[in-house]
């Protein structure tokens, strides 16, 4: 299953960096993988489009490095950078909502693509939940960008997350129900998004045909 370079959405990088990334995909040991991982993480925090699919390019580089020389320099550095940002996430959120939302999108994307022996990375499970639960707090529910981010991630990885840790998913959904019912000042869009995600999970991470019609009938196919 070959991804074309287009799939990686690297057009937002300058040409030199694009070259660096393309080389990393084909011949990882010939480039500075620490630099590559930093480039990818930095861009993910700035570029919302990139952060949504950055996990894919990370996965390919990890596989390529492992195959070429059994190394894991890229993965190790990328994960540790993620961890650093995670530790400072509250400050990040205070500084820039956009960056925070990009971070959550990126870490969820990494969780989605970077598997170990086809299993999700155990080390990321709690951090991902911590991020999503933060997005479900009252102050975050007031921000449409955060609600939007939350429901997008749950659509993509909710089912997997629940499988690896069901109690925390319950914890998250208690907050979502409370938010939907009790939070004053929610925009109608926020309420719509919350209702949809509540129905989505209740339907076993699937929207019934009629529900789909209700929520998405306005959208052109």
């Amino acid at each position, binding site marked *: 299953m070959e991804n074309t370079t287009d799939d990686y959405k690297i057009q937002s990088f300058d040409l030199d960096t694009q070259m660096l990334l393309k080389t990393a995909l084909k011949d990882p*040991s010939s480039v500075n993988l620490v630099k590559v991982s930093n480039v990818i993480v930095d861009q993910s925090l700035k570029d919302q489009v990139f952060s949504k699919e950055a996990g894919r390019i990370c996965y390919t580089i990890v596989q390529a490095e492992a195959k070429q*020389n059994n190394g894991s320099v890229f*993965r*190790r*550095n990328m*994960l540790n950078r993620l961890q650093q940002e995670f530790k400072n996430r509250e400050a990040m959120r205070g500084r820039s909502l956009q960056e925070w939302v990009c971070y959550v999108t990126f870490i969820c994307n990494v969780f989605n693509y970077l598997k*170990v*022996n086809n299993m999700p990375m155990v080390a990321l499970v709690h951090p991902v939940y911590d991020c999503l639960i933060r997005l479900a707090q009252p102050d975050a529910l007031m921000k449409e960008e955060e609600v939007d981010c939350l429901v997008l991630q749950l659509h993509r990885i909710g089912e997997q997350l629940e499988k690896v840790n069901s109690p925390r998913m319950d914890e998250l959904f208690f907050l979502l129900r409370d938010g939907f019912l009790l939070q004053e000042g929610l925009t109608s869009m926020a309420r719509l998004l919350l209702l949809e995600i509540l129905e989505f999970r209740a339907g076993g991470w699937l929207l019934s045909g009629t529900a789909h019609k209700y929520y998405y009938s306005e959208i052109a196919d």
Partner: protein
Amino acid sequence: MSDWTRGRRRDANNGEIENSSYGPSRWSNCRKRGIDGSLRADREVDGGVGGDNNRHADSSSKNSEKRPESFTTPESTGPVSRCSRQGDWGSQVEEDEMKKGVHRDMQRYRRRILGAEVTQRERKTSSGSSGSCDSKEGDHMETDEAVLLRRQKQINYGKNTLAYDRYIKEVPKHMRQSGVHPKTPNKFRKYSRRSWDQQIKLWKVKLHAWDPPAEEGQDNVLDNIEELGLGDVMDIELDFPNLPDSQNAPIPHSLSLDSEDCSGTPVKLQKTESKVEPEMGSS
């Protein structure tokens, strides 16, 4: 055998003094303890001979009060917590991956053994070396996860070298002659800690025969040694290929044996470094 033990004990102590005289290097902490965390001095006191895995588990719990909270190992970029469940995500994922790999290997091995049980029993009578003299290998294989992980790490250090790469390219499995060609020790067999460590050491010594020629490999190693501050450790390792019979030179071995657990990475780095250098050419 007792002389060897005594010599080793003495040198472990001298080794520690020597290490501190070089000043605190990145590796000085990790050389004092094995990968399972137990202090080397205490392992020596245990008597070394026939120290099987249960003993090590006991000694580590006894010494838990004395050990510092964190130390630096070659695998990490900074101090990490002492216990095997390391704080940084990179290490956690690697550890997790290795555990899954070991379990998968165990299942494969079990299946293989069960399938070939009869032929195994017949072949057993000719080996007769240390350790497992059991009629059914499947029942007496090593299953302790901590032991298997430690052994796997040691094997990985050996396999993650240019020498190993060259060796497997040059000598396909069916061409291998026992005794002549190095064979990876079987991590699923029951061996004492000392016996296993010795097998690993001898295996790596044999692999050195496939080290890349001087211009490519050795000079690069020497350059990297100074950068990484590993002079004291690597000097010992480089002596190996010249020894006619490695079993008769215990004293330098003990220091490198101690450091082997933690210092395998330099060889791995050597391999990575030489590939990163554009002038070094391909491969």
